[in-house]
Each structure stands twice: as structure tokens, then as C-alpha cells.
């Protein structure tokens, strides 16, 4: 909890500073927009966070967005599938790919970095091939207005992606912090062998984490496709896995595995989105966008590291 508090403080300070400099920050329109983006990014970041907690990584998220986005557009506009079927397919494809990753990683012991790097290349290529490098869209959403309206709609004044994120986060909080499976995730991430010696099927635990990541990527993918409304297969979702990794790490996940929390990932995601917004609102050249983000992630991680060193020393003293 202490760990999340530090980054929460950073978030609060950033918000306060931005609001002070540019009051537009707290306008309803801007806040709704930020909430929408936090929803979009938060959902798949949670999935990535789980994978990171097992000591793995998933670099293929962005390419999966492109692939599932292209397929979704085709299914709805060209093949005229009923929208529930198309949406289910757009979720199932990433889940299936996640399952493949998990299987290869846990059975054949290939490093997650390599498997998902291959995924990053392959899915992007497939997406471009299927779309023949054409930008895809949803036109006037004829026949699937319901789906579009759900993704762009509001509930209690909150944008739908944000509401979905809250629901998913609540569920995943119980899964990670209260359920047996969540405990095994943490255990596997710290020491797979020791966990296996306790009679736990560690392969299944690891593979499942990739399937869940796929599921959440699929859900995010649909929301993202309707958010951008046009999917250019060569750059749709580019770098998004890195936002997810950055959010998870800022939120206290360790790339070595075994550490992390849902609340932390949420705050990490929010921090990144607020930063983006800040760059826009404060008139910082948008070319500096990545540099600002990189610097903040660095500062966040460094500060956390120093705090931990301190408390470790204090712990020994007692």
C-alpha cells in the first residue's frame, strides 16, 4: 500500500500543477476525455501487469490491436456478421494467441520476450496483409449501431471504457489479491521451482496469465477500434504494449516478477494519461511527448527504489 501511495502522490501533484497552470484541465470535457483514455489503456495494462507479475512480458499487445481491429472491421462491414459474434471473435482471437504464447512459454520454456517479440512482428504483418495496407473503418455503423453506442456511450456520466475498467479492475483485484490463483501468480513470479515443489501446476498458472492478458487486450481492442474509428494497420496500436509496461512498472510491478498490485497499475495508467494531457495543455511541443513520459517513468522508478533502500535499512535497525 505504501508503494502505491508514493505514485499516487505524484499523480495528485501533477494534476494540481496542471490545473493551476491551465484551468482547462478540470473542465468536464477534458476530464471525460482523460477518463475515456484511462479506461482504454487501463484494461490491457492490467493484463500486462499480471503477466509481468509471473516474471513474463508481452510485447505483442499493440500488434494484436491492429490484427483484431482489422478483423473486427472486416467482420462488421464486409462480412456483415451479427455484432455480438464479431465482438466475441475480436476477443477470442487475442485470447487464443495469448494461449499460444502461454503454452510455448510454459511448456517449451522459450523466453516470453522472444515469443511475444515474434508475435509483435507476425501479427502486425498479418494485419497489414489482411487489410492490404488499407485503412479500415466502420462507416456509418449500419447494423451494429448498438456496439458502437455501447463503446462510445456513458453510464452515470462516465465514459463506457472507464466504467468497464472499473468493473474489470474490481474483479481482477479479487483475483490477484484474494484468490488462490492470484497467490499462485505471485508465487510463480518469485520462484517457479519452489512453487512447483509445493504441488502447484505452475505451467497452467503461467499459461493462464497470458490468456487473461489476451482477453483484456481483446476487450481494449474493440474499445480502441471504435475510439479511433479508423484502423490503419501499419500503426494502429503501435507502442501500446510499452504504455502498459510503463504503467505496470510505475505502479510497483517488478519485471523480475512476484510483485505488483491492481491499484498500482491503475494509478500508473492514470499518471501516463495525465502526462499526455499535460503535454497538450501546457503547450509543450508534442515532439517532446515521449521524452516527458520517459523522464517521469524514470523518476518514479528511481524514487521508489530509493525509498525501498531506505526502508530496508530501517527494517534491519529494528
Amino acid at each position: 500500500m505504501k508503494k502505491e501511495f508514493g505514485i499516487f502522490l505524484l499523480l495528485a501533484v501533477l494534476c494540481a500543477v496542471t490545473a493551476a497552470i491551465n484551468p482547462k484541465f478540470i473542465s468536464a470535457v477534458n476530464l471525460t476525455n482523460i477518463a475515456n483514455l484511462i479506461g482504454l489503456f487501463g484494461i490491457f495494462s492490467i493484463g500486462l501487469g499480471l503477466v509481468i507479475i509471473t516474471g513474463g512480458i508481452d510485447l505483442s499487445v499493440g500488434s494484436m490491436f491492429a490484427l483484431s481491429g482489422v478483423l473486427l472491421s472486416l467482420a462488421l462491414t464486409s462480412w456483415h456478421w451479427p455484432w455480438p459474434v464479431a465482438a466475441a471473435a475480436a476477443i477470442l482471437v487475442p485470447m487464443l494467441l495469448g494461449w499460444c504464447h502461454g503454452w510455448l512459454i510454459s511448456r517449451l520454456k522459450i523466453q516470453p520476450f522472444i515469443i511475444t517479440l515474434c508475435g509483435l512482428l507476425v501479427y502486425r504483418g498479418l494485419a497489414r496483409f489482411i487489410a492490404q495496407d488499407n485503412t479500415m473503418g466502420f462507416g456509418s455503423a449500419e447494423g451494429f449501431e448498438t456496439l458502437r453506442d455501447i463503446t462510445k456511450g456513458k453510464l452515470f456520466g462516465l465514459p463506457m471504457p472507464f466504467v468497464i475498467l472499473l468493473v474489470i479492475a474490481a474483479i481482477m483485484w479479487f483475483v490477484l489479491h484474494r484468490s488462490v490463483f492470484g497467490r499462485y501468480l505471485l508465487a510463480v513470479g518469485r520462484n517457479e521451482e519452489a512453487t512447483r515443489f509445493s504441488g502447484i501446476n505452475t505451467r497452467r498458472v503461467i499459461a493462464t496469465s497470458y490468456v487473461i492478458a489476451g482477453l483484456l487486450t481483446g476487450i481494449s481492442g474493440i474499445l480502441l477500434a471504435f475510439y479511433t474509428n479508423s484502423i490503419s494497420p501499419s500503426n494502429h496500436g503501435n507502442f501500446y504494449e510499452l504504455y502498459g509496461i510503463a504503467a505496470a512498472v510505475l505502479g510497483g510491478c517488478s519485471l523480475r516478477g512476484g510483485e505488483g498490485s491492481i491499484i498500482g497499475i491503475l494509478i500508473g495508467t492514470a499518471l501516463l494519461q495525465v502526462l499526455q494531457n499535460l503535454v497538450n495543455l501546457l503547450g509543450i511541443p508534442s515532439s517532446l511527448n515521449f521524452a516527458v513520459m520517459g523522464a517521469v517513468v524514470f523518476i518514479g522508478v528511481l524514487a521508489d527504489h530509493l525509498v525501498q533502500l531506505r526502508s530496508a535499512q530501517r527494517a534491519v535497525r529494528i
Partner: protein
Amino acid sequence: MSAAPLLEVRGISKRFPGVIALDNVALEISEGEVVALVGENGAGKSTLMKILGGVYQPDGGEILVGGQPAKIHNVTDAMRLGIAFIHQELNVLGNLDVAANVFLGREPVMTPFKLIDRKKIHADTEPYLKRLGLNVSSSTRVDQLSIAQQQMVEIAKALSLNARLIIMDEPTSSLTLSETERLLELVRELSKQGVSVIYISHRLGEIQSCADRVIVLRDGKNAGALAKEEIFHDRLVSMMVGREIKNFYTQSTAAKTPGYFKVRNARSIRFPDQAVSFDAARGEILGFAGLVGAGRSELAKAIVGLDPSGSSDLNLGEEKISIRHPRDAIERGIYLVPENRRTEGLVVQMSVRENVTLPSLKNFTRLGWIQRKRERKTVEEQIVSLRIKTPTTEAAVMNLSGGNQQKIVLGKWLAMNPKVMILDEPTRGIDVGAKAEIYRLMRELAERNTVILMISSDMEEILHVSDRVAVMHEGEISGILDRADCTEENIMQLAVGKKISAAKAPFSS
């Protein structure tokens, strides 16, 4: 007597690339029996136990449980048959709390969502901690515990399985005197309750005190068994190593220079308010005894500058030296061989050769190129002199038995030429034959005028190897005993902080 033994294994064989770890091995154990399994490092003890625990599959042979053939394909199978296994290496998870570790894989859940019943898991854990005399809360994160306490958590976990057979692979190697006593008592209790125990240890004293029977392995084969009345030190040793070991403990003959190494006001991060001072003589082995948490390792770290907030004033001969950083200590010829050698002393993925020469690689180079031949020759000499059991110099250290890994690290340090050598638990997990070799090397170093400080929790070692013994209690030296006054009784008294008349002051000013 008529009933089938609880567990029987026959003709078990297991080979690894380049090694036959087990060759036609048999073992049986009845209900409530305590069988000690002994043998040199690499004899195959852990491998045999891992087969019983479902970690490895045997290449041949059969396992009978209660007279019925049993197949143990994985850890779960073993647990189902009532076999609990405390591994030689610690297998606790530092990122979880004590209760989560004890019940890992068997968490009590609340329906319908399989959420962990947190009240129950903690309530269920407490009695086991009490029974072991482990004075920590079940909600403490395990990485906050000392190594000894972590080991006790592992033992609690095995107890909580309510197993019929508990395998303990060197459970006491990281425990100190009082905890070892507690564990031995526990083993006796368990056996009274009808639980069988297979107990692996290199400390023969422990075996004499708890075993009903000893089974000896040598080079992966059965080398004999001894009944309780036949368990004698010499007999065990010669069965294990296949030869007599003479002069197990070599006595000091060299003249000593008292007060050569003076430590004054050493403060460690753990006991910042205790200033420790003592003198050690050139040419002597000064043993450091004490209970867990007495601050011995911390003192050592403060002396060599490994403790950033520690401090001490040192005098080496006439020279006053100040140490801010471990580098300063190494430059002055003051070395510490740390306690946690597996993590602090080895690159386990690398080969035996690469590990042995890592700190001294410069000696094997010409113009920056490594002279492989010379390097290999030195390593081969080390392997012979320490009796390291490895198929070749190129085997990955990871695949050696626990004790052989220790020997490699130790050999690496002993080959250097120190003025002061601090050894923290030098023979943890090392077999008797190699122990004799290490004691000989230590003695040789001392004769060559090195000051040796030996921190040890092995009572026999403290009693027989040291020239004098410093006993620590809660961060202080509670007294120093001359060789003539070194008795278990005296050491235990000082270790719990009692005053005794035989104890000398740690230094003369």
C-alpha cells in the same frame, strides 16, 4: 514387525549426463522410525530423496508404499502418499507472508469464488509456529525473516501436511545451536507419534542423537547400514568415505602473536548501540559461537566494510587501518567468505572452471588472453585436493550437489593469501571428508601467520577447530574461552548471556 514397512525402495537407479547418481539403491523405513541418510557430497542422497518427492523420475527400480507399488510422477503424487519434503535449498517465497508459505498449494478457500479464507489460514498457521518455537507473526513477509527463521517456516510447512513420512535434507545447515536442539526434539516427538523421518545431515553428532538407524550411500550405491547401537563417529566416517581419516582435527603447533589483530568499537547496523572489541592472535583460529541473531555475521560485515552504516577501528600489527569499503579490506588482505555462498559466491550457470578462477583470472592471462591450459590445470588440482565431485571441469555448477558447490567457493577463497580471513559458516553442508580437508587448509593458513576468525554454528566444529572461542550474545561478546575451558556447557551458558568464571575478557587494553 510383520506389517510391511511404510516405504521401501528397491533397485533405484538414476543417471544424469556424465554421472551415475544412483546405482541400484535400496532403502526401507518403518512407521515411526528415524532413518539417517549419510554420505559424501555428491553421493546421491538428495537425488534419491527427490525421486521419493516426485521431483525426478528414476531410470529403474520400484517404490513400495505400505507394501503396494507406487508411482510418484510429480510432487502432488508424493504429497498424496503422505510424503513431505524439506529441500536442501530454501524454497520459501520471500514476497508472501508466513501463512501463505506454510499453506502454499493447500490454501483454505471460501466458496463460491475460491477466495482465500484469510482468517482461517492465519489461525491454522499459528499452532505450527508455536510448536516450533518460532516467534514471528504469521502475517510477516518471509523476506523479513532471517535464514534460520525461513528454514523453520519450511519445517512448519512440512508439519502442516500431516505427512506419514517427512524427508529432511540437511534441515539444520542454516540453524543455530538452540534451534537445532528444538528440531531434534521435534524429530523425536514425531517419531513417537508414528511419523517416520528420513534425516540427512553431515553433522554426525545430530545423527547419533536422533537416528534409529543409519543408511550410508557412497558414489550412488548402498555402502551399508548401522543400527542405533553401532553408530560411532569413526565407523560412520570410514563407511562414508571408504577410508580412515586420521587427524580429523589438527592441533595448532605454531607460536602465536597475541593482540596482532585488534578490533575496537565495531558497530553494526543491527546493534548500533553495542561497541564490540576483541583481540585476535596471529596464527590462531578464533571461533565465534552464539545463538541466531547474536550478531556474528553482522560484526563480520562491519569489520570488512560491507555494512555502510557500521564502523570499527582496526589495528593490524602496529598499523592502524581504516576501512570504508570492502575494497579497502581486500587491499589490506582482510577477506570475508560470506555465509550465503550460493547467492553471494557463485555464478551457478557457469562452469566449475570459470567459477574457480573468476576472482583470480588475471593470474591466468597473457596480454589479456586467458591461458586455458594453465587455468584448467589449476582447477583440476583444486578438484582433487578438495575432492570436488564433478564429471569434468566444464560441468555447470548448477548441476553439482549442494556440498560440492560449497567446496568450490571455499576453495576459491582459501587459495588467496590473506592476512585476516573471516569465514562465516565455512563447512555448512560439507561432508566429513572434505571438512577434514578444509580444517587442514585453515590450519595451514594459520600456521602461515594468518589470523582466522571462524563463525560457526556447528558445536563440534567450534569445540575442536578453534584455538579460542568468542561467544556472542545480543550483539556483545559475552566472554572468550581458552581451549582448555571450551565445553559445550560453557559455550551455551555464555550464549544465553550468563556470566561464568572461566570466561576471559575479549581484549586487554
